[in-house]
């Protein structure tokens, strides 16, 4: 009995060049969102996971490079307070938003957060990017 050959995954693109170019031209968030789309098309591509992590790492590093560092105090944005429905927060984001009271700095938020340090910082960076929160200079 003959069997059909299993469908082969498409060959992986040159992620290093693509991601490098995208970072230079479109910035970290655009690149991150594109990579998340690519991950659906290449679910078994291990190196793609690595490129996603490199971009996530860059996002968190930029976020903590705030002049006030871990003493920066995030606040809910006016847009979030007046137009809450526009933000489609997931459970993790919702929980972190509930901790933001305009007094706790990043250091305290990391202590209060039930999530690991990196996830907490990445989620706060995402909330900042989506303008749900602001981190005043």
């Amino acid at each position, binding site marked *: 009995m003959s069997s059909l050959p299993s469908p082969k995954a498409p060959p992986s693109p040159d992620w290093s060049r693509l991601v490098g170019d995208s970072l230079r031209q479109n910035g970290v968030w655009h690149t991150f969102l594109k990579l998340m789309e690519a991950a659906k098309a290449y679910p078994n591509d*291990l*190196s793609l*996971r690595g490129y996603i992590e490199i971009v996530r790492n860059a996002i968190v590093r930029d976020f903590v490079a705030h002049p006030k560092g871990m003493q920066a105090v995030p606040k809910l944005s006016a847009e979030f307070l007046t137009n809450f429905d526009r933000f489609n927060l997931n459970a993790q984001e919702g929980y972190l938003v509930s901790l933001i009271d305009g007094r706790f700095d990043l250091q305290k938020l990391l202590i209060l957060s039930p999530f690991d340090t*990196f996830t907490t910082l990445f989620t706060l960076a995402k909330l900042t990017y989506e303008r749900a929160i602001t981190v005043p200079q």
Partner: protein
Amino acid sequence: MNKMAIALVDRLSTPIAVITETGLIEYRNTAFQQAFGDDASHWLKDASRALAGERGWLQGFFVDAEEEHKTLDVEIEGRVYRVDRIMMIAREESRAAALSFDDVTAQREMEQAKSDFTSMVVHDLRGPLSGIQGTLEFVLSQEGTRLDAMYTDLLNEAQRESERMMGLINELLDFSKIESGNFVVEKEPVRVAGVLKRAVRSLQTVAARDEIFLVSAHGRDVPMIIGSVEKLTQAVINLVSNSLKFTPKKGMISVGAQVVRNGDVPEAIVVTVTDSGMGIKADELAQIWEKYKQSGNKSLRGGGGTGLGLYIVKQIVEAHGGEISVASIEGVGTSMVLRLPVKRTATASGGWTAIQDR
């Protein structure tokens, strides 16, 4: 074979023979006759036999007949030969393979001697070095001792260098075990989250000293795997240490774990060690797992390594049935990715269960 080809093969110094699946010699060159004489038919009988589900080594050449090349190291009458299948000869009535026999006994003995020597030297070096480390640790931990700042700095430097030397010695020890085939991975349930935490904790001081933000990033639902806590911790420590060498001040290193699921079923854990270092050149990426390979980029922390760290990581991951990959963008960072399979056990109801990390 035509006459010219036969004459040519006959003059080669490497023993070559065409042997059937059942162990009959259809052709042998002079070198084969000189090496094995008429005894060959005797050991070929054993080599072609399949006993109690176990195949003789000759059968191995006929199992994967479609593979272009196949090489096996086999023991024949007290000597080790590297047997290489040069070509398959498929006919209607039977199959035969043209095999060359390269005597590698001396090479094997030399490798074993080298490995034994490395093992001995490494063990002999570890003892006194542990003593030096213990002494330095004791002196530096004495509260209330008034040491001149200059001496404290020098002692700290001595401690750092002794740690580095211990790392190099341990790498050599592992390498010697891998090369001699004695690299054994114990099979026990392993909390991957615990492995990551331990690795991060052990290098936190070094990272803080170099002003690098070292964080772990893993969810709470990371299942356990079957493997060796010690070896996996060592693999993650090797990767983080490597990242520390190439990440500038104010940089970031994250150590994460994600679960890969097929529906609800956890299939694997993907561990990533990602840094914001200088990255690796595209043409060097494929070779970084090879032994003695060092990055073309210069370490920011000084002091070279053995070039064995990443090679050892690859051996550890493969010993766990996993795979390894790397992603890098020059000037942005590098991420080392390990995929470790989750051990599943069948349940009485015919379902599955993964060992959960609680």
